[in-house]
Each structure stands twice: as C-alpha cells, then as structure tokens.
C-alpha cells in the first residue's frame, strides 16, 4: 500500500492504495466518483477521460499513485455549484450530442481540453481532436456539432437557443 494525497473535484483526499490501482478505479471505487466510467481495457474508448493538472488524460491509463500531489477534475464538478452547466455540457444537451450517455463524460472532458487548446477549431480539427473517444450511438455527427457550438458559446457568439440550428 502506498499513501497518496491529491485534490479531486476541489476537495483534498488521501488514501492508502495498492500501487497497481488505476486512477479510474480509485475515483470510482474509493471516492465514489461514478460519473467517470470504464468502457474498455485498452485505453481506446476514452470514456474515463478526466483532467489531471488541467489536461485531459484517460484515467485508465494513469496509476492512482501517479496522481499523488496532483489536481484531478471529473465530470462531476464541471457544472457550477449553483447548477449552471459548463458551456460544453450545455452544448451537448442543446445539440443532442448524446444518446445513451455512457461516452459522454469522457467526450465532454476531452472537449473542454480541446477547446482550451484551440478555442475556435474547424470541423476537421474537432474530428481529429476527438479521435481518442469512441461513441457507438450518435455517429459523431451531433457530437461534432456540439463541440463547434460550445466553441461559439465560450466565445459569446452564440445564444443557447440556436445550437440545433448552428
């Protein structure tokens, strides 16, 4: 067992963990952060994407001990405390960017990171930027639309009612 201390969703936490424990297992099994989900065993699907020190990572591809001293943000604290959705969440809802919703936490966390890096991406840049996240429901059409709309929302050039027509 190894003792780790980190900051997850704006709370300080500390636990003894097995060195082999994955960050996603730590989040789900020890902290109850079940908003982050596991979709594969091979780091292909991206469903478990969270932010580690502000950058997106697949949390199945990080050991919990590697997150010692780090800041981890998950889908569960993306919205404001008063319930106001993050623009990316708002965009996915507005543009019907999800169906079953299982890939959605990872898609949204990846999108936040993508837009941090490139606030005004082209459709092509969005498609390439989401290549590490699989979705089986939407055919990506409305996910791509959601990301482009989120970019507009964040730049203040769109209102929340015109997303589906964007």
């Amino acid at each position: 067992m190894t003792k780790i201390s980190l900051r997850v969703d704006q709370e300080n936490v500390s636990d003894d963990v097995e060195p082999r424990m994955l960050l996603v297992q730590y989040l789900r099994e020890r902290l109850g952060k079940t908003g982050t989900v596991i979709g594969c065993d091979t780091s292909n699907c991206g469903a478990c994407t969270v932010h580690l020190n502000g950058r997106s990572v697949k949390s199945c591809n990080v050991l919990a001990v590697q997150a010692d001293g780090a800041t981890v943000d998950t889908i569960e604290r993306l919205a404001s405390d008063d319930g106001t959705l993050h623009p990316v969440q708002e965009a996915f809802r507005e543009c019907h960017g999800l169906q079953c919703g299982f890939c959605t936490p990872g898609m949204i966390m990846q999108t936040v990171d993508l837009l941090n890096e490139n606030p005004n991406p082209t459709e092509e840049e969005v498609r390439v930027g989401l290549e590490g996240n699989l979705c089986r429901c939407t055919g990506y059409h409305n996910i791509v639309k959601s990301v482009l709309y989120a970019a507009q929302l964040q730049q203040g050039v769109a209102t929340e009612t015109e997303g589906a027509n964007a």
Partner: protein
Amino acid sequence: MTAVDDRPTLSPEIGRDRRRKEDQRLITGRTRWTDNLALPGMLHMAIVRSPYAHARITSIDLEAADKAINIYDVFDGKKLQDSMGVMINAWPITPDQKAPTHYPLAVDRVTFAGEAVAVVVARSAAEARDAAELVDIEYEVLPPVLDIKEALKDEVLAHPDLGTNKSALWQFDSAAAGTGGNVDEAIEKARSDGIVIERELIQQRLIPAFMEPRSVVVDPVGEQITMWTATQIPHIVKFALAATTGVPESKIRVIAPDVGGGFGGKLALTPEEWITFAVARHIGKPIKFTETRSESMATGHHGRAQVQHITLAAEKDGTVTGLKVHLDADLGSYVALLGGGTPVLGAFMFNAIYKFPAYQFNCQTVFTNRTWTDAYRGAGRPEATFAIERVMDDLAAELGVDPLEIREKNWIKNTEFPFTTVSGLQYDTGNYEVATEKAKAAFGYDELRAEQKERRDRGDRVQLGIGVSTFTEMCGLAPSRILGALSYGAGGWEHAEIRMLATGKVEVVIGVSPHGQGHETAFSQIVADRLGVPFEDVEVLHGDTQVSARGLDTYGSRSLVLGGEAVVRAADKVIEKAKVVAAHLMEANVDDVQFANGRYTVAGTDQGIGIAEVALATFTAHNFPEGFEPNIDSEATFDAVTFSFPHGTHLCATEVDTETGQVKLRKYVCVDDIGTVINPLIATGQMHGGLVQGISQALWEEAVHDEQGNLVSGSFVDYLLPTAADLINFDVGHAVNPSTTNSLGTKGVGEAGTIASTPAVVNSVVDAVRHRGVTDIVMPLTPERVWTALQGSGGGAATVEAAEPHFEGQEDNR
C-alpha cells in the same frame, strides 16, 4: 372549478425538437449505470473462461483459489448445476430444431473460446480476478468447427452428440403460401429468355460493441431477489429467470437502470446474469459482476454471420420475375434467445419495396464453435436489404441502366398502397417516388454522375462511386398472432399506465425499456399533447419490474410504434374516466362534456375544469359520482395487427483510390419515411447513429477468429469501431406518410439507418470500380480487399465457385 381558462396556451408537443429530459443527469455524471451500484456487504465475482473453442473438461481444481485471501467462495458448473437454470431459446424456428442444452456455466464440455467454466467470489473485483488465475482446469481439446461452409459438411461437429451441425431449415415459398408464383419456373424461363443474376454474398460476423460493458448486481436480501442488469429486456429477464430456476416470478424484481447502449447486444439472456443470480442465492449476499471489454467482445453475442445465395430472375427489360434466397446462418455454439429467428426475420424483407411475382426463402441454421449469434441492430433485415439492394445494382449493370431506373421499374408505385407483397405482408403506406426525388435533389445526383463520368474519362486515380439503397423494413416487433404463427415463445404487445397525481403531475409508466433512445422525452411529448398538460409535468418511469409490471421491452424499432400507442390508449382512458368526474363536479350531463387542451367544458356554457383539478378532486374523493371508484389512473395494452413499414432512399458517394484501395466517404444523403415524427432532434440522431453502424459494417468491422477459434478482434485495438475522424456529416431528410397501424402514425426509426446504409456504401464502392471489372468486394471493404479486387483477383470474383446449393450443375452466367 374555474369558469375562465386563464392558463397559457400550450403549443403542440408532437413534432417539436424538445431537448432531452434525460440529458441533465447524463452530462453531469449523476448516472446509475449498473456498475455504479455498491450495496452493503456486496461481493464481487470473476469468471474463469475457456481458452479453447471446443474441449472436454477433465478436471477442475478450485482449492487454491478458495484458499486465497479475501475469497468468499468458488463454484464450477457441477456445483451449481441444480440451481443455475438453463439458457433458453424463445424461438424454435422449426418443430424439429436441434438445440443442445445450454448451461450458464459449462458442466462437462466447452463449446467456444470464452465460455464460462468457473467463478470466484471475493471481497473486491481485483481479488476475484487474481484468484481466478488460481483455478486449475484441465481440458481434453476437441477439434473445433469454425466456418459456416465447413460446418455444413458435418465432418467436424460443434456438438458431437447431436450428430450434425445443422440445427433447422426454415422455408417460405410464395407458390405454396399462395402469395405468389413458382420461383423455379420463373428462373428457368429467365435462363432461356431473360436475365438471371446469381450471387453468393457474405454477411460477416459483427460485434454489437455497446459502450457500456454488461454488468449485473443481484441482491438476494429481502422478500424479493433484486437484479440490476445492463439489459434491454428487464421484463423478459424476469420471466425467464422464473421459468428456468424455479424461483417464483413474484419473488423476482429486475431493474434496468441507466443502460449504456444495446443495439440488440443487450437483447439477451446472459449466462453472466444467470450465474450471478445463482451465486447470490447460494451465498445470501449481494453479488456484482461487471465484464471487461475483452469479455464483452468474446462472449456477448455477435450478429449477422451469414452466407447468402441469391438468384434473381428478370425479363430482358429488367422486370424482375422471381427471387430465390438460400441463407446459411451461423448460430455459433448454442441457439441464443432469438437464435435462428434473427435470420428468419429477413424472410419477409428480401422482396423489399419491389413487386416480385415469385419468391422463395430458405434458411439453414448451423452450429459452429464460435460465440453464439443473435440480434444486432436490424436483426435479419439488414442482411436481406443488403442482398437485394446489391443484386438490384447488378441487374442495372447487366442492363446498362441507372440503378434508380431499375428500382423504379420494379417498386410498388405510390398509387398501389396498400400493397400485399409476395412474402404476404401488407404495406400500408409509402411513397418511394417522393423519397427518391428528394434524396436525388439533396444529393446533387446528376452533378455527381457527371463528375463520375468525367473522372472515368480522364482515367483519374481517384474514382467516384455512387451507391443507392432504396430500403424498407418491418418495425414494431411484433403482432402477437404473427409471432404465434412463427412459433415464437412470447407475445409482442406493449403496455403503458398513466397515474394522475393529486398535485397535477403525471406519471407515465412504460413497458418499453430505453437505453439511449430518449423515451422519457418523446413519451412526455405524446402525453403532454394528449392530456393537455405541460411537458415538464410529465414523468416517464420505466425499467423496473416493480414499477412497470407489464412490458416486453425495447428492440425491433417497437418502442414508439407499440409503446407509444399503448400510452395514447392509456391517456384516452384517463380522459374518459375523468370526464365522468368532471361532469359530476360541473353538475352537467356527461354527454354534454367535451375535452380539449387539458380541459373539460360543457357545451353551450362557459363552465370548465382542468384535468389536474379533476385529479385533485379524485384524490380527495369528497364529492364523487355515486358508484364510481375514486381513481382516474388508467392502463392499456396494445397489440398491433401488423407491422409498420418505414422506407427511404439512401445515396452514398465514395472516392476510391485505385492505387491504394482506400475508400473515402464523400457524401451521404438519405430521405426516410418513418411516419409521424414525434421529436425531430431525436429521430435524426437515431438516423445518424444507425447510418454509422451500417457504414461501419461495409467498411470496417469484422469479428475474426483464428484457426483455433480464438477471437483475434477481441478488443477495441483490433475490432475497428470508427472514430469521429473516420466519418462525415450526414444529410438526413424526411418524407412523411403516416402509418395506419397506430393512431400517432409512427413507423419506427431505430434500425432504419443501419439497415439502409450498408448496401449504399458497398454499391458506391463497386460503382466506382465496376468499369475495371469488379462486381463484388467482400465486407468489410478494407483497402487491401478493394485493391485486390482491382487487380482482378479476390474481391467478388473468388466467391462464385462455391455458390450453393441451387447453383449446382448450372452454368454460371454472370
């Protein structure tokens, strides 16, 4: 009671692109996937699986695992044999169908690589998996049979005791059924004085690959045993658990919480559910099992897996005179829940939108030592649509005419509805002309044909192909009487209940069980319109057999067509019941009371009362009509008379690099008639996702086993699901002709895209290179296969020699 209606007017909900109610919890991570559950004292289970496709189990040593730290118990098949029940097939397609007994946990023999052999129960999932490594199993390896054609030879047997790999032969003949002529006569005539197209087509094996791995939690504590499971079919699971384990049905509660996709892959009774149920009963504590992705790929059922032999007879002008189909369908190692019923569903769809005068369908199901197959999005209908749309293109090529021209020559004209097809189904409404015209216009059909010609003339390295698919499907599975005639073991009705709460809110309980389709939103819209209550006041409940006692769940594009109609009928019963109360409260004659926009009024007066007020008055029951029970809640069960028949015209343009074989999607347009659209945002989303699953069969996906029967495409590294970067945007349009089979006029949308798109893509690629002598390329159309086809070897050219059985001794005429 209010004399004046001062409520804001509610605008119609049906047809409105409402944002989904379910999204709030999904985008904030407040979800209840089965694997998210943690119950007090819950233990975790791991499964030891067979590494061999076919073997006898000679010994199982559980001792080392049992002694490991934090291990609670270990089981093999013999230990659970009397309590674990069996896996059932609900659809014996013929009375003499062969179906070996299928235990959830193998007892003495394993029949595919991945079959469950032993289980370990531990305090944590990690400890269970560690200890699973300590289970020592010895096998006597038996030869596996893996290929459909090899299996048909009966030389190596998947189940030696059966003496054959053949399970059942299901046949339909239009002459015998009285629905059409004699197909053999039509083919003979065409051989001497017409055109005969004969093809062998391969439907490769696919993996549904829903994003949420399957998970099950069973809590045996309390009076009822509760099972949470990632399933499409909680009601059927409950029934089947009772029927096979001897536990009274009233002692079982099944809950499908948030379910992360299914696509038919969770239309299943799984050994994992049955084993977890048995183990929880043995131990008396809650047990969880969540599969890994690799387990999901290897052991969740697969789909498609057919060899199709098609013979199409036509006159010299292209008028089709007959179609003969023989399928060899791979069951895998057991007959699954629907089993051979899945390919048989295609029997009614090979004739598609066409007026074929003669038709014969034969389906031979066969065992192999591979993962069993069952429903995957479309289930039988994509296979049928693929074959007929591929062959109609070949007929057009034979005649040198545009593929749309040959279709129009043979399709049912819009003036001919209702039309009874050669397979005996009556199509109620449709308009293939309008859908095609709209699609052509949106696609820029003539311009793309011009570009294709220009590239061809120029000898461009990148050739343009245009693929057509004018599909139909049968939805709303299924009318109970038809299921009975097909020997299916259950009905196909659907159920709904509406509860009028004292506070004016409305609870709608549905028997269909969503896993991404947006039922909560769409059904709220239907009820809001019908009862005249605000959309926000409607709560849709589902997926828990204790809440929703009756239902037959979600698959086969049935939820809206059947479940939606059940909701409408339940709402109408509420309105009728509440009308008696409203009349009493207004001291009016019930015959003078009218209901509109959520309000009862008395003809010729300004009296009125809202339905929410009636609900409150019913709750208090202080002032109630004599002899009338104080309850306006209602339920309804709807059983359809026939199917509904969505259709559409799909056009796909691809660019094929003739030097590398690389295929690039250029444009995809579809115009579908899915009947009345309740929520265009959701319906279009269903089309997008469906299209990609069909496109993906054409271009990318295949479940591949090696010669020992190991699944080599057993993870997302090897099984190619497309990413956003592989795809394009789609132009999805509608051409609505409401269905007459239900009062909303809906037809079903969940499977349409998948059914239609596969042949559109393959036809497009073949069209791009047909001038180079290519007539077929086996799916998935990898660059290697396209390139090989272009070299004049492989692709489609190699498959005709093996065409069986009704091509034997006949001249290949293509």
